[in-house]
């Protein structure tokens, strides 16, 4: 798993590559918590490189979603691969998260 973060002006862009599973979800969690420390209003999560996510990973997505909702911010996921999108669909998470086809759509949405 590889995580990079960068400031986009209106928020933070997190790019995650590889797998988020039970062996490394805490790495992802601490990386995300680092971003959440600052008072950030928008988090763009680029899922293009994400090819597997376990329920432990989903839990972190939920945590971020809840935290963002609590401070009136938004978590926007985009460029999700079909297999990941399916997991989100099956679990009903698609209805909880804002999912966009790409970064532009995410910015406008």
């Amino acid at each position, binding site marked *: 798993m590889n995580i990079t973060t960068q400031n986009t002006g209106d928020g933070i862009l997190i790019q995650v590559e590889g*797998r988020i*599973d*039970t*062996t490394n*979800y805490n790495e992802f969690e601490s990386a995300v918590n680092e971003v959440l420390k600052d008072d950030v209003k928008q988090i763009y999560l680029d899922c293009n490189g994400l090819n*597997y996510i*376990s*329920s*432990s990973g*989903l*839990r972190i997505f*939920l*945590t971020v979603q*809840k935290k963002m909702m609590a401070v009136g911010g938004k978590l926007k996921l985009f460029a999700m691969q079909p297999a990941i999108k399916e997991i989100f*669909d*099956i*679990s*009903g*998470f*698609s*209805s*909880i998260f804002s999912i966009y086809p790409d970064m532009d759509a995410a910015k406008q949405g």
Partner: protein
Amino acid sequence: MKRNSLSFKIISRILLSCLMLGLVIFSVYYYYTRTTIERTTRENAIFLAENTIKKIEEVIKPSEMIPNNLAWIIETGSIHNDSIFSFLSKLVKNNPSIYASAIAFEPHLIPDGQKYYAPYAYRNGDKIETMILGSADYNYFIMDWYQIPATLKQPYWSEPYYDEGGGGALMSTYSVPFFMNKNGQRILGGIITIDISLKWLTEIVNSVKIFETGYAFLISRNGVYVTHPNQSQIMNETIFTKAKELNEPKMREIGRDMIKGNSKLTSLYLKNKGDVWIYYTQLPSTKWSLAVVYPDNEMYASLHKLNIIVFLLSLAGLTILVFFTISIINRLISPLTKFAKSARVIAQGNFNTELPQIETNDEMKELHDSFEFMQKELANYIVNLKETTSAKEKIESELRIAKEIQMGMIPHIFPPFPNLPEIDLFASLESAKEVGGDLYDFFLVDEYRLCFAIGDVSGKGIPASLFMAVTRTLLRSVADKNKSTAEIVSSINKTLSFNNESNMFVTFFLGILDIRNGELKYCNAGHNPPVLIKNKQGADYFKITKAIPVGLFEEFVYTEESIFIETDDQIFLYTDGLTEAENVNNELFGDDQLIEVLRKNAVSSPKLLIKETMKEVSRHVNGYIQSDDLTMMSIIYNGRNSEK
């Protein structure tokens, strides 16, 4: 000393390098010494020869003076005929080196018309006798001693000869011509001779010694041996007859060169003596040639002696070196052997074993300290390990108990409802760790209705197992015949979501099957869609309204759906541990493969179906570590009219 021991290695290397160094030094030393010996021997031989020549000349020169002076006296006419005899007698008497002396006159100087006149004085014992030489029998004019100097008009040393009259001594005659003025012309007056014994010459030449057998010899102008250590050769042989006898052409060449009066240092191989060096030079007065001979091998005798001494000294030195090296190395490395022993003892678990005492402050001391450190660390480590192990054992035993408790929470008696032939059910749960977050459950809410559920808590291990236990407990306490599946799920969701700081959630599928008519009411909270196997053939996923897992949002509204299933239909439920079972290449078992397996085994009973599916999954995973809890549950509806 063992061949592979450290000291053997060190000593053999030291010895080898010493030997090589010694060999180089010795070679250089040998070469220079040899060259020096050759040079000094050569110089010495030349010096000896020259010195001998000088000694001989010192004797000859004064003797030559006598007839020379005599010639002058006669030429000036200072001697009368009457006093010639007494003069000669005194001359012989006063010069011990002179054996005899004569004055031989030319006929024109002889009165009374005589042809010969040669007064002669010689030693006879202690007395000096006189006589007149010359007669028809002894025509001195044709004798070498007379003729040659008379012809050459200069002094002449005769070839050596044995004088019978002179006591058999080896003699040589020195002849000096004298001249007279007659009618204004300078004409030969006669020859003055002295006979000199060559005994002293032999002594001088024989005193020359080089090394053991080196010697000097003298040859005359004809190559006759005048002196030689081998007496028999003197006067009997010439260098040429000897060369012929020994068949040595080089010797003949040397003889010729000697006669020519040259000086030279050269080497020569003689069959009876081996390689010899010879230096020869001419005696200026007599024109004889002196040679100094020394054998090549004797020249290096001293060097060889020295070599033996050097060799013995080196041997002794090396022996001492080896002895000292062995004792030093043994003293240095003896602690190593002890350390090795200590290490074995330590390895056996005795960490407090005594280490060898090291007095020095060197690497051995470092090793000692390291060993000591290792002992302490090992002891600490073992203490920690014991503590950790016991703690771990405690946790493991607790986990085992927890697993038993958890497994006790889910029904695992199959077939569960032997009195209900309408349904058959089988389920299995395998946790990735001791305890897991998967759950399944089934129970009858009333006489005809089977409530069944499958769920998967996010994450795994102890946190997931706690959440699972709560969920299972909630299900049992909430579910009753009057509630719809959506109501039960919503109720569970509400309780779980309340104060759920950890954001853990459960994907949950709850179904209630009416065994009278096959009506299946269900609510899916984000769980993987179950598979419906219709009439023991074909298998397809349920089409399910999307809803989020329970435990996330208190107010989320779950909805109930309903279908009718028919006789021989089978509902297969599972957690994502099945579809996401991975092999070593991270390839998932997958939804498609699951459907394929289920279709292939569509006729199987729930138990067999689950067994076969498990087999397929095991084949796919191929021994790779199980990463997630894996739960399956399958329910077949045998229909209302099935036999009891």
